[in-house]
């Protein structure tokens, strides 16, 4: 499930809902992205996340579908936040449920690597020298591309 929202999310209630939905779940892997107060050597006072409504949901559902082809998953939840955020704020939640931890860990990382490189989000930071759009990182492309060289599943 994909749910784009401005407000903060409650990790406990999201996990509780996933757990309650299926007694066969043996593992839940969870990633929480957090806004940092430093980027490229500059202090970051706040940031705004813009996205492409409609395409965001399609792109993320597509990523989850690809993860399901590689690992045995029960469910995947992606809650990306958009709008204004400050350092220490949570920015994205990914939670993946499976029978065993191996599939859950791998799929959770896979979803995040593809989210960072293929989902239409853009960050704008406020630093002491003004506002600036964040540049895409080559290291994120590398993190995604390494999945091409791994055997499906583990």
């Amino acid at each position, binding site marked *: 499930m994909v749910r784009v929202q401005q407000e903060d999310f409650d990790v406990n209630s999201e996990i509780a809902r996933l757990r309650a939905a299926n007694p066969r779940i043996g593992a839940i892997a969870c990633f929480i*992205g957090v806004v940092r107060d430093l980027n490229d050597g500059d202090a970051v006072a706040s940031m705004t*996340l*813009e*996205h*492409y409504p*409609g*395409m965001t949901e*399609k*792109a993320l559902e597509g990523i989850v579908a690809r993860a399901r082809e590689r690992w045995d998953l029960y469910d995947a939840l992606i809650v*990306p936040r958009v709008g204004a955020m400050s350092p220490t704020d949570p*920015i*994205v939640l990914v939670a993946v449920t499976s029978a065993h931890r191996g599939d859950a860990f791998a799929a959770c990382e896979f979803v*995040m690597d593809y*989210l*960072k*490189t*293929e*989902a*239409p*989000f*853009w*960050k*704008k930071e406020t630093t002491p020298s003004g506002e600036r*759009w*964040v*540049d*895409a*990182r080559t290291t994120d492309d590398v993190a995604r591309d390494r999945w091409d060289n791994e055997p499906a599943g583990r």
Partner: protein
Amino acid sequence: MKITILYFAALRERVGMAREECLLPPDIETVAALRQWLASRGAPWSEALAEMPRVRAAVDQAMARAETPLREGAEVAFFPPVTGG
């Protein structure tokens, strides 16, 4: 062919608009041709589309390539490389 064009993030700021409806000449049939046609209209499109190093495009909300074809009523988006998460 009539299409909708959306601009996001830095590109939206550079062209000064989030959205426009365009009636394309008949020979504009791909993303690459559209990009060239938009730039040929002069500033701000010429500058925004030419100077931004890596402009990405989507057609009907799916990532597109230069040769991706357009269709009547398509939603075409231009934007910088993504930086979410």
